[in-house]
Every structure is written in C-alpha cells, then in structure tokens.
C-alpha cells in the first residue's frame, strides 16, 4: 500500500518535471501580484511594510488557487482517475500522494520564493523566519482544501471561477492566522500562538480533507 503511495509520488514528480513551465506559472504569478502593489499604492516603505503581511498571504492564496484549477483535470480527461477508482487502493491515499506532490513543487517553491519578495516589501530580516514557517504550515492547507474544490469541479467545462467561489471562503482562517502571525512578528510580539494554531489546522486538513477529495472525485468520475 505504501509502495503505491511512493510510486504515485514519483510518477507525479516525473510528470511535473516533464512540463516545467507549468511549475513556474504560479511562482511568476505570485511575484507579479506582489510587484503590482508598490505600483498601485506607492513606494513608501512604511505603508508597504504595514500591508505586507496581508499582501504576501493574499498573493500566496491566489497563486495556490490558480495552480489548483488543473490539478485533476488531465487525470480526469485521460481516464487515470477511473483507474484509481477501480483500483483496490483507498482513493484517499492516492489523492493524498497527488496533492503532496503538487504541494512539494508549487506550494513549497512559493514558500522559498516568499522571503525574497518579503524583503522587497520592506519586511525586517527578523520577521522572515515567521514568514517562512507560517507559509510552510499554511500552504499545505491551501492545497488540500483547494483540492476538494478541484475534485468537485473537475468535470465542469469552466470550473476555474467556480473553484475560487467555492474555496476562497474556506481559506479565511488560514489567511487570518498566517497574516496574523506575520503582523505579530512585525510588531515585535510572539507569533508562536498563531503558528501553533496553523499547525493544528494543517494536521486537521491532512487527516480529513483526503476523504472529502476522494468523495468529490468519485462523484465527478461517476457523472
């Protein structure tokens, strides 16, 4: 059973690396959105620093959402999902591997890119670890919850906007906790409370959402 998990991880990784442009798209999107804000609100460091926690998090949220739209689409179209459903392995496990692979190359890359953009927005060096850890804990939740929406809308012709409508409200706790942690760090307050809450939400998401994703995929495949 676990061998199927690692095999799927390897297969997804291989697939992602055979089309590297798709890997880069969410990252470029993330960077562009963040670059838009100084242009829109002006380059004053003080203002940028104040809004940067919210800014980084909203941009991350949208970037993850954007990358999730196609998460299951090709698997749906080429019949791979059907093969997963009729296989003897629990679908929730396969789905977890799929989302994990996706997160490792889009969410994690986002996390690694974030400090650079944070510094460009004028975040002090001392807050960068909090930024890193909060994104590291938060982006898996974004990927997992988003995958629920992607699973439910995979059979639809134009699911992109609908996916955003379904999923963005569910992202709110992550947004509040993530940007809250960064804000606290910016004000010199301890951010551990926020981070612990984020960590518990991550644990909750990892344990519960695969079942919802699996249920969503079964519905979409059974249509």
């Amino acid at each position, binding site marked *: 059973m676990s061998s199927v998990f690692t095999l799927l991880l390897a297969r997804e990784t291989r697939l992602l690396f055979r089309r590297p442009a798709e890997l880069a798209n969410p990252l470029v999107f993330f960077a562009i959105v963040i670059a838009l804000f100084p242009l829109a609100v002006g380059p004053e460091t003080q203002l940028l620093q104040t809004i940067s926690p919210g800014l980084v998090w909203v941009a991350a949220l949208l970037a993850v959402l954007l990358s999730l739209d196609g998460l299951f689409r090709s698997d749906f179209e080429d019949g791979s999902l059907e093969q997963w459903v009729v296989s003897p392995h629990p679908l929730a496990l396969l789905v977890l591997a799929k989302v994990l692979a996706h997160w490792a190359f889009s969410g994690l890359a986002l996390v690694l890119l974030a400090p650079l953009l944070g510094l460009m927005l004028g975040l002090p060096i001392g807050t960068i670890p909090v930024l890193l850890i909060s994104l590291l804990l938060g982006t898996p939740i974004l990927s997992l*919850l988003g995958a*629920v929406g992607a699973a*439910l*809308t995979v*059979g*639809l012709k134009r*699911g992109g906007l*609908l996916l955003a*409508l*379904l999923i*963005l*409200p*569910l992202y*709110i*706790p992550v947004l*509040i*906790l993530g940007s*809250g942690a960064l804000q606290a760090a910016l004000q010199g307050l301890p951010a551990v409370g926020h981070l612990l809450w984020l960590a518990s*939400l991550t644990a909750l998401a990892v344990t*519960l*959402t695969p079942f*919802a994703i699996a*249920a*969503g995929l079964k*519905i*979409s495949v*059974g*249509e």
Partner: protein
Amino acid sequence: MNWTWFHKLGSPKWFYEISGRWLPWLAWAAVLLVSVGVIWGLAFAPEDYQQGNSFRIIYIHVPAAFLAQSIYVMLALAGVVGLVWKMKLADVALQQAAPIGAWMTFIALLTGAVWGKPTWGAWWVWDARLTSMLILLFLYFGIIALGQAISNRDSASKACAVLAIVGVVNIPIIKYSVEWWNTLHQPATFKVTEKPAMPVEMWLPLLVMVIGFYCFFTVVLLMRMRLEVLRRESRASWVKNEVKALVGNNS
C-alpha cells in the same frame, strides 16, 4: 431495530401527502407568530436605554441570523443523510434549502448594516458577527453555484452535500478565527449584537419571532420541495395522477 419508518420518510409519495396536510397549519402558525412578534417588538417592547428605538431591528436581525446558521447545519445534515443512506428526499431538501438560507443571510446582513448606521455611525463595520455572516453568504453562494453548474442532478446533489459537509466543519473554525481577528484589530468597546442581560419584555417577543421564522422557513422549504418532488418523480404514476388533478382544478 426497525428502520421502515426511516425509509418511509424517504418515500417521495409519503412526503408529498404528509407535507400537504401540514402545510396550511404551519403557514398559519408562521403568519400568526411573525405578525405577533413584529407588532410586539415594534410597538410594545420597551426601548433600549443606550440605543433607543433602533434596537428594535434585533427582532429581525437575530432570528434571520439564527436561521441562516441553522439552515447551513441542516444542509450538512441532509448531505450526510443523502450520501450515507442514499435518501433522495435529503438531496431535494439540500438543494431547496440553500437559496432560503442565502436569503436569510442577506436579511441578517442588511439589517445588521442598517442597524450599524445609528449605532456605529457607519453602514458597514468589520464587526466579527457581520463578517462571519458575510462569509456565510459566500458559502451559500458556493453551494448554489455548484448545484447550478453540474447538469447531472444526482451528481449535483452529491457534490453539494460534500461541499456542505466540508463547509460545516469549517464554520466553527472560521467563526473563531474571525472573532479572534476582530479582538486583535479593534478592541470592541460596545457590541450591539451581544446583550448580556435582556429584560423579559425584550426577549419574549424575540423568542416569538425566532419560532415564527423557523415556521416560515419550514413552510417555504416544504413548498419548494413539493414542487421539486413533482418534477423529479414525474414518471411515477402517483405524480401523474396528482398533476392531472391539479391541472384539472386550475383550468
């Protein structure tokens, strides 16, 4: 354990008959309770010593907000019943209750905003309750949009059920995080929506209104479900007879 009652409950024909018998009674109860509550709340309840008469908006705001939240929980419960026991009526209930829930959320938001003007001096304040209500409205929109987007109606009900269940697990998390966010950003000095001690003359009409709103919801839900049952079961002979009888009356 004997489960026949449960499956009977799922039978559309049985539902149609029983709901037809209950509907007039519930409708009258809703009209009576809401009118009594409105008149009592508007004319007879004492005014609030801090907010004056604008406080009377509570008699709509709170019942609507209560109902909006319980309808969402009901959606998730219907979703579980529909997914686990494959009961078709639960699917019907889920899809028909969602728009009513969205309307109730809309009422709660609107009255909250109007109430905010005399109390806070602004039409919209990012108060924890109002913000949670706004998010709830988005969650309702999501369910309605998903239901409309999927053409196959069995898949649509199932997908909505999954979404409602995911949403209901999220609602407490959203609620607490929003409340927390609120206390962090603006230490509220004065909260209209929290009345620690309300005299009997004030909360009794509120209670009447809450019960009245629940009755109203039941009436509208039953009306919508009855129509949907007729549509879905249009091949069944009892529906054909029923429709023939109804059409005969109309023409």
